[in-house]
C-alpha cells in the first residue's frame, strides 16, 4: 500500500538538555495481516509495515520489528533522551519495499 500513508509524530518543540521526553507516533496503514479472507474465500495477501526506527542525530532511540499482530494504523509511544539540540528521524519500512520517513527538530536549552 503506497497510497494514503501518512505518518504523524508528536515531539515537544523544546526540552532542557539531558531531559527525557515522550514521543508518540502514528502512521496510517491498513496492516493487512495475511489471515483474513475476502468474500470469495481467497486469503488477502499480507501487507504490513515490518520495521520502525527512531533516531536522534543518527543514534538509535528505538528499533521495532512489527508482526501482523500489530493493529491497523500502528501507534507507538516511547521515551527518548535529548542530550543536545537536533533532529529526530522516524522511518517506517513497508513489506512492499516502500520507506516512509518524517523528521522533527527539537531545541535543547
Amino acid at each position, binding site marked *: 500500500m503506497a497510497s494514503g500513508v501518512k505518518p504523524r509524530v508528536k515531539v515537544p518543540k523544546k526540552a532542557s538538555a539531558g531531559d*527525557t*521526553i*515522550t514521543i508518540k507516533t502514528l502512521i496510517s496503514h491498513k496492516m493487512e*495481516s495475511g*489471515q*483474513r*479472507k475476502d468474500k470469495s474465500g481467497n486469503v488477502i495477501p499480507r501487507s504490513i509495515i515490518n520495521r520502525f526506527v527512531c*533516531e*536522534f542525530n543518527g*543514534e*538509535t*532511540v*528505538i*528499533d*521495532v*520489528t*512489527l*508482526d*501482523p*499482530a*500489530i*493493529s*491497523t494504523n*500502528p*501507534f*507507538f*509511544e*516511547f*521515551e*527518548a*533522551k535529548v*542530550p543536545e539540540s537536533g533532529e529526530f528521524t522516524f522511518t517506517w519500512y513497508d513489506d512492499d519495499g516502500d520507506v516512509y520517513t518524517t523528521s522533527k527538530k527539537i531545541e535543547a536549552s
Partner: protein
Amino acid sequence: MQLTRRDTLALGLGAAALTLLPFRASASLADDKIAEFTGGAPVGEGGVTLTAPEIAENGNTVPIGVEAPGAVSIMVLAAGNPRPEVATFNFGPLAGAHSASTRIRLAGTQDVIAVAKMADGSFAKASATVKVTIGGCGG
C-alpha cells in the same frame, strides 16, 4: 438413547476441550518463539512490567505497554494468535526509559507474554491474561 446428566456433562467437557485445542497448539508455538529469542537460556520472572487491559472489547486494537529497566530488547507474544509474534522492541543508546506502548490484535481471550533481554544477557518474562469480546484476526 436418552441422555443422562452424566452424558451431557461429558459432552460439554468434550466440546470445551475441542475449542481449547487450537489455543494449546499455538501456546507451544509461543514457547518455540521464546526459545528462539533466548537461545534456550533460562527465563526468570520479575524485572519486566507488562501493562494490558483485563478485558478488551475489541480484539482489533488492544493497548499494551511494556517496561523493563536495563533491557536491550523486549519481545511481545500473543500465545493464542494464529502467529504468536507481535513485536520486538530494540532499545538504542538514546532510549530514555526502556518502555514502549502500542496497540495489538488479539484473536481471542489469551495470554500476552513479554520477554525481555537484559544488558547482562539474562532473560525475564511477564504475562497477562486479556479477555477479548470480539476477536481481531478476521477469519
